[in-house]
C-alpha cells in the first residue's frame, strides 16, 4: 500500500501550552486508522494541522502523496483530498441535501449558480456510497444517522482520499453504527484512507487496522489493531494500570427505597419493574434509543408515564414536575452535561446552588449574603473540586471537575435516589475513577443510585446489580461477580 500522508516532527504550542510535541504519523491509502487519546492529548490539534486550520511549529513536515509542505491551509488540504467530518457534521440544516453535498460549487467568487451541475454532483456522490436521499429534502428534516451519510457524501463529492471522522458513533444507535462501519469497509475498497477519532474503542476496533495513541501531546505509539483491546488502550492512553475486583455485595437486608411497577410510556418504554435498595448502585445499560434516558426522565418527573406506578419509601408517587421529584429526594444527573447539566457561562457557585435556591432563603425571602458561597465551599472541599475561585464561570473547569460540580448541585438537595445518566461522558479515564469513588461514597451513606450507561465496563465494575434495557424493555438482570463484559455485550446488542 502507498503512503498517503506522512507527518514528521509535528509540534504545536498555544501560548504557554505545548499541545503537540514531535508527533510522527503515517497514513496508508485504503487503511482504516484509529486515533485515540484522552481529552487534551492533542487529537483535535493534530486534526486541525492536517486540515490546515492551524499551522504547526517550524521544523515539522507534512508530506501528502510525495509532496512536502511545512504547513497547509484549508484550501490546499481540501485540494489534496483531505476531508474532516466533525462531530457536529458541519452541515447546513436550512439547505437541501443536494446543496449540502455539492457545497463546494458555492465557494469562490461571484457567479451564477448552476443547479443542474449541483444535482448531478450530489447524485454521483450518493451513488458512490449506495445511498439515496431526496435531493430537495432539507437536511434539518433528516435523522442524525442520515445527516452523517450526507456529510460522507459531501466528502465523496470533494474527491476525498482521506476522510477523518471525529467521534462518528457518539450519537448513533447500534444498528446505525453497524451500517456506518460497513460503509467504511466499502470506502476502504475504493482505496480511501479513513481515520477514526473516537473514545468508543470497542466499536472502532472492529474495523480498524492500526491504532495510534496520543498522550499529553506526544505519540505513545502505533499498534496493530489485532494486538490491542480496549483495556490495553486505556493503559496506553493514561499510563496507568486499572484493575477492579468484583465482590458479591449482599443488600437483601436493606430497605427498598424506590419501587417501579409495570411502568410504561408509549413510544419510550414498556412494563418496567424493578426495586432499588438503600445504598445500592443499580446499573442500567442499553444502547442509545433503548429508552434508558426516557425512563430516567420519567422517574425524575419530566416525562410522565402512561401506566404503572412508582413507589418511594412505600408511598406512591405521581410526579408532575422535576421540582416535585427533587423535593421527594430524587436527583438526576443528565447525560448532556454541557447543555443540560450545567449553565456553563455562569459561576461555579451559582451552578452548585441552583437546585436549592428556595432552601437557602432566609428572612424576607432573601438569600443571606454568604449563604451560596458557604454552601459551595463545603462541596468544593467534600468533593475535592479543583477550583481557584467559585465566582469563575463553570466552563473554566476541566470535564472531570465540571462533573463534580454537577454532583455537588445534586448532593446539596440531599437525595435519597440519585440517577446518573452516562456520568462519565467526556471525562478523562483518570478523572472517571474520582467520580466512581464519589458515587461509591454516596452509596455507603445510604443513597440509592441508578447508574445508566452504555459503557459496559462502567456498569460492570461499578454497580451491585445490572439491568439490561433493549427496545424499551428490561431484558435481563446480571450480577457483576457472576458476569463478564462479553456476556453483557451480547445481552445489550442481541
Amino acid at each position, binding site marked *: 500500500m502507498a503512503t498517503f500522508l506522512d507527518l514528521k516532527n509535528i509540534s504545536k504550542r498555544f501560548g504557554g501550552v505545548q499541545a503537540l510535541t514531535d508527533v510522527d504519523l503515517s497514513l496508508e491509502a485504503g487503511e482504516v486508522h484509529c486515533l485515540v487519546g484522552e481529552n487534551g492529548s492533542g487529537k483535535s490539534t493534530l486534526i486541525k494541522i492536517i486540515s490546515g486550520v492551524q499551522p504547526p511549529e517550524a521544523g515539522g513536515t507534512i508530506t501528502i502523496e510525495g509532496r512536502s509542505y511545512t504547513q497547509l491551509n484549508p484550501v490546499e488540504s481540501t485540494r489534496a483530498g483531505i476531508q474532516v467530518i466533525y462531530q457536529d457534521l458541519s452541515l447546513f440544516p436550512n439547505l437541501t441535501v443536494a446543496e449540502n453535498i455539492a457545497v463546494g460549487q458555492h465557494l469562490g467568487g461571484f457567479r451564477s449558480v448552476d443547479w443542474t451541475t449541483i444535482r448531478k454532483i450530489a447524485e454521483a456522490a450518493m451513488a458512490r456510497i449506495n445511498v439515496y436521499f431526496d435531493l430537495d429534502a432539507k437536511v434539518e428534516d433528516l435523522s442524525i444517522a442520515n445527516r452523517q451519510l450526507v456529510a460522507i457524501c459531501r466528502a465523496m463529492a470533494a474527491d476525498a482520499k482521506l476522510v477523518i471522522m471525529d467521534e462518528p458513533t457518539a450519537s448513533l444507535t447500534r444498528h446505525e453504527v453497524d451500517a456506518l462501519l460497513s460503509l467504511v469497509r466499502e470506502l476502504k475498497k475504493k482505496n480511501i484512507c479513513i481515520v477514526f477519532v473516537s473514545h468508543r474503542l470497542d466499536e472502532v476496533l472492529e474495523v480498524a487496522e492500526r491504532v495510534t495513541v496520543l498522550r499529553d501531546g506526544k505519540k505513545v505509539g502505533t499498534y496493530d489493531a489485532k494486538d490491542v483491546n480496549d483495556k490495553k488502550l486505556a493503559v496506553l492512553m493514561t499510563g496507568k494500570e486499572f484493575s477492579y475486583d468484583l465482590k458479591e455485595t449482599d443488600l437483601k437486608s436493606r430497605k427498598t427505597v424506590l419501587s417501579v411497577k409495570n411502568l410504561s410510556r408509549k413510544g419510550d418504554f414498556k412494563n418496567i419493574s424493578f426495586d432499588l435498595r438503600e445504598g445500592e448502585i443499580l446499573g442500567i445499560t442499553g444502547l442509545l434509543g433503548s429508552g434508558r434516558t426516557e425512563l430516567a426522565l420519567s422517574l425524575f418527573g*419530566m416525562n410522565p408515564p402512561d401506566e404503572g406506578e412508582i413507589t418511594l419509601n412505600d408511598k406512591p408517587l405521581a410526579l408532575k*414536575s*422535576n*421540582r416535585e*421529584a*427533587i423535593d421527594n429526594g430524587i436527583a*438526576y444527573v*443528565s447525560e448532556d452535561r454541557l*447543555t*443540560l*447539566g*450545567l*449553565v*456553563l*457561562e*455562569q459561576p461555579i457557585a*451559582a*451552578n452548585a*446552588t*441552583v*437546585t436549592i*435556591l*428556595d432552601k*437557602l*432563603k432566609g428572612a424576607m*425571602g*432573601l*438569600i443571606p*449574603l*454568604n449563604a*451560596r*458561597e458557604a454552601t459551595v*465551599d463545603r462541596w468544593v472541599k467534600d468533593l475535592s473540586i479543583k477550583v481557584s*475561585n*467559585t*465566582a469563575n464561570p463553570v466552563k473554566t473547569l476541566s470535564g472531570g471537575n465540571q462533573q463534580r460540580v454537577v454532583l455537588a*448541585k445534586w448532593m446539596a*438537595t440531599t437525595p435519597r435516589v440519585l440517577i446518573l445518566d452516562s456520568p462519565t461522558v467526556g471525562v478523562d479515564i483518570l478523572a472517571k475513577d474520582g467520580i466512581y469513588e464519589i458515587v461509591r461514597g454516596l452509596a455507603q451513606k445510604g443513597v440509592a443510585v441508578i447508574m445508566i450507561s452504555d459503557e459496559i465496563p462502567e456498569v460492570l465494575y461499578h454497580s451491585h446489580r445490572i439491568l439490561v434495557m433493549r427496545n424499551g424493555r428490561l431484558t435481563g438482570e446480571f450480577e457483576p461477580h457472576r458476569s463478564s463484559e462479553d456476556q453483557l455485550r451480547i445481552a445489550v446488542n442481541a
Partner: protein
Amino acid sequence: MSHEPAYLSKGPDAALVRLIKGLTHDVTNRRLIILLVALVAVFGLLIGERFFSQATVQSMAFQLPELGILSLAMMITLVSGGLNLAIISTANLCALTMAYIMTSHVPGAEGFMWAGWQIIAIFAGLAVAAVIGLLNGFVIAYLGVSPILTTLGTMTMVKGIAIGMTRGNVLSGLPEPIVFIGNGTVYGIPTAMLVFAAVASPIAIMLGRTPTGAATYMIGSNEKATRYSGIDTKRVILRVYLISSLLAAVAGLVMMARFNSANASYAESYLLVTILAAVLGGVDPMGGFGKIAGLVLSLIILQVISSAFNLLNFSQFLTLAIWGTILVAVMAVPNIRKRLGFAD
C-alpha cells in the same frame, strides 16, 4: 477563595466597603467609573464651575429617572435572555389610562374622593401594565415565541390601542400631587429621582438576593439546563415580563407627571436608547449578565454627556451620536485588548 473578611462583615462601614468593592471588582464597572471620571474632568475644564452648580446637578437628577426606569424595564428582560420592545408603548397606554381617570373622575375640590380617585387611577394603570406583561410572558414562556417577535407584536398592538382610544390626542391637566411627582423636590431631591431609587433598589435586591433573581441569570444563559435543575423557568420568565411591564407603567407615571400630560407616542426615541444604556452598563445582550450598579453608572454617564452638551449649547442630536459612539467604544475594548494580546 478570595472572600475578603470585610466583604462579609456587618455594619455601615462594611456596607460602604462592600459597595465600593462591588462597584470596582467588576471589570465593566471599573471601566465605566474611569470613563465617568474622565468625562467629568473634561466637561469640568470645558464648562467650568457652572457644570458643578446645584442647578446643573439638580436638572440631571430631574432628567435621569425617565430613561432610568425604562432602562430597568428593558434590563431585566435582557438579563433573562430576552428583550421587551413594548416598554414605551406600555408606559404610554398606562399613562393614558391614569390620565383618563384623573382628568375625568378626580373632583376639583381636595378631599377623600380626590385622593381616592388618584390612587385608583394609578392602580388602574398598573393593572393595564400587568395584563400586557402577563400576555408577553405567556406568549414567550408558554408558547415559545421569541421575545423580540412577541414584544414587536405587543408593542404595535398596545400602541394601536392607545392611538385608537385617543385618536392620537393628548390628555392633559393632571392633579397637583401627580404633577409633583414629575416636577417637585423633597429636600432638594427631585421626586422622580426618589421614585427611581424606590423601584431600582427592590429590583437590585430581587436580582441579587432572591431565588427568582438567581434563576433569572441562569435562565438568561441556558433556560433548558436551568429547567433540568428543578426551576420552573416558565413561571420565572412570566414574572420577569410582568415586572418589566409594571416598571414601564411607573415610567409612564413619571413621564406623565413631568409633561403634565399623556399621549400615545411620547418618548418613542427612548426605546433603543434603553438597550444602549443597559448594554453600556454591562448587561449582556445575549442574556445572563448585568447588574443594577452598572446600569446606574451607565445612566449617569449618559446624563452627564447630555447635560454637558446642553450647557455647551450643542444639539441634543449630537448627544445621541456620542452615546452611540461610546457604546461601540466600550463594547470594543475587550476585543481590542484581546487582539493586542492582553489577558482580561
